[in-house]
């Protein structure tokens, strides 16, 4: 049966409906409709991390639709142009170049992963087009230039959160790390986790590596089993994390598994089943969090998409909102002015918390720890920086 992604991959044009709506609202007739402001989005709608891109896209669409319903920005409607990077290395650079040079977008939203954001960042920087990443947590992402922003916490913090959780809440002392050599996020997280565990009096008994796309982890896991550890930290994405969990349980490793935001996908549970039950992961947001901002956002998200929001859709929503807010304050779509307005963002109330950018264009935010319980992600605790 041919299965097609649920989106038109080339373009997701929202402008048309809004244009009709603005006429209905009584804009002076006879005058040409205002030219929409074009915002580019690139995401992994297909491929290995397809659930990432599809979830993120839902958050972005919701934000743009809400903004358009409230009259758009600068008196013009917003048009979202979405490109699929197929979860492939190299593809992000191509599609972002296209968005900037051919589609003439005024700003770019994306990507969720650090690796693909790092590919696109130099291109956006060179063209002086602001880029707001919803979820690229690798430290070096915003170091690519002063046009690169993100609305998520950085890996240094995420590594610390998981290390603290392991030491203080789970009370483990000997930990092993299994990280991916092909993901900048994984390498960075492994480093920060190692430093924090060692500082806190724990030991990293063994550190093993794999490459993205690997399917056989039995060799590394057998070595980890022989090292005898109390917990295993796997900073990676869900496809590999699911196979690692499954093979770990098959080899008789029973210690708790610790993951990161890259684990948060329904596919993790679909692929690994009972093997990820009881695993812990750090992430940006939980729909089960009872904070009022979260509840309201989750309700609107449910009404639009018929499912609960998660960290990825909430971050994407926030990234789009921060950008729209900056557009309004800048009063223009001009790249440098828009950049300055973005950099001046202060105490912006998003779904994932209050966002103010520091000098490195990173927000300071809290994290949540989730666990997998009865086949779904359950909220464990909030962690503040």
């Amino acid at each position, binding site marked *: 049966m041919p*299965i097609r992604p649920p989106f038109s991959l080339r373009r997701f044009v929202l402008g048309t409906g809004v244009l009709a709506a603005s006429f209905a609202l009584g804009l002076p007739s006879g005058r040409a409709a205002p030219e929409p402001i074009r915002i580019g989005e690139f995401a992994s709608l*297909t491929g290995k991390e397809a659930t990432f891109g599809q979830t993120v896209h839902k958050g972005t669409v919701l934000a743009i639709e809400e903004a358009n319903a409230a009259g758009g920005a600068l008196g013009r409607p917003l048009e979202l142009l979405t490109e699929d990077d197929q979860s492939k290395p190299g593809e992000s650079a191509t599609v972002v170049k296209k968005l900037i040079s051919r589609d003439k977008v005024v700003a770019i939203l994306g990507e969720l992963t650090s690796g693909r954001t790092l590919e696109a960042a130099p291109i956006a920087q060179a063209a002086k087009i602001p880029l707001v990443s919803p979820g690229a947590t690798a430290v070096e992402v915003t170091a690519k230039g002063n046009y690169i922003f993100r609305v998520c916490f950085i890996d240094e913090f995420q590594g610390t959160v998981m290390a603290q959780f392991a030491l203080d809440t789970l009370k483990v002392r000997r930990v092993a790390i299994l990280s991916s050599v092909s993901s900048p996020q994984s390498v960075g997280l492994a480093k920060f986790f190692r430093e924090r565990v060692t500082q806190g009096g724990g030991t990293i008994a063994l550190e093993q590596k794999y490459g993205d796309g690997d*399917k*056989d982890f039995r*060799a590394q896991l057998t070595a980890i089993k022989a090292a005898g550890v109390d917990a295993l930290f796997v900073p990676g994405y869900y496809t590999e994390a699911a196979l690692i969990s499954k093979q770990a349980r098959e*080899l008789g490793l029973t210690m708790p598994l610790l993951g990161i935001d890259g684990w948060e996908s329904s596919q993790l549970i679909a692929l690994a089943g009972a093997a990820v039950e009881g695993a812990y992961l750090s992430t940006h947001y939980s729909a089960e969090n009872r904070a009022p901002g979260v509840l309201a956002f989750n309700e609107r998200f449910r009404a639009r998409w018929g499912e609960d929001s998660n960290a990825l859709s909430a971050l994407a929503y926030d990234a789009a909102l921060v950008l729209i807010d900056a557009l309004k304050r800048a009063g223009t779509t001009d790249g440098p002015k828009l950049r300055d307005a973005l950099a001046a963002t202060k105490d912006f109330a998003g779904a994932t918390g209050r966002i103010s950018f520091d000098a490195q264009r990173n927000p300071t935010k809290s994290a949540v720890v989730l666990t997998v319980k009865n086949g779904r992600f359950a909220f464990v605790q909030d962690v503040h920086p």
Partner: protein
Amino acid sequence: MSEFLQQLLNGLSLGAIYALIALGYTMVYGVLRFINFAHSDVFMVGAFLGYYLGKFIPENTVGGGLLILLGAMLGCAVLGMTIERLAYRPLRGAATLNVLITAIGVSLLLEYSGQVFFGATPRTFPAVFPSANFTLGGLVISSNQVVVIVVTALLMVGLQFIVYRTKIGTAMRAVSLNPKAAQLVGVNNDIVISFTFGLGSALAGAGGILYALNYPSIDPLMGVMPGLKAFVAAVLGGIGNIPGAALGGLLLGTVETFVNGSQWSTYKDAIAFAILIIILLFRPAGLLGKASVEKV
């Protein structure tokens, strides 16, 4: 010690799958003297056939599992024979290079039509065989690993029987030795070549199912890496040589696993391919291959 045995077992079960795929490369090479690059994608189609058959056949039963395995093998055999009929037969007698380029084309066609028809998103392969883990001393043996090793061993014995004990096998060896002379003594080369493709593709289909059983996330590009490794295994063992392909596969799987479990895991592919280069430097025809003199 138990860590060593565990790694050996992991390596053998990975190597057994490489061996199964390598057999297909080696058989086609033996008969036609070209590398069928589409072979690794037939392997992928095998896994997807299993995925779709799994929707109709009850999971977690030995009978159902065997049915899925046979179904995938049959489907892949038909696919392999169709590829041969449509893409390679019209080029019979053309330069080997032309066929080789066509093979790469067929491979890309399968990979990207796979993305259109199956979607690029990885799928979860169903648990077609009931699975359990046994502990033997400090050794953990998963039933899936046992299934892989046993099925591979049985298929290899069966293959050996077909090639050396049956009429069609004798014809295959005759075509391999000298296609013109075989035709002179009444062998229908087209039928033999078609059969070889069918047999090799059936093994790839079985490999696809066994691979997906152990690594249950399947996508249209899943054949690329195992295919490349199996090709290396076939060359390592001596291409055109059936026991050589099996030996090469097991060797490569074991080496890869041991490197992966050490602190040099980042270099696993580099080391596997370096071994190939070293062996070919000293034994250009591969481990079990016979050096042949090119007749002019």
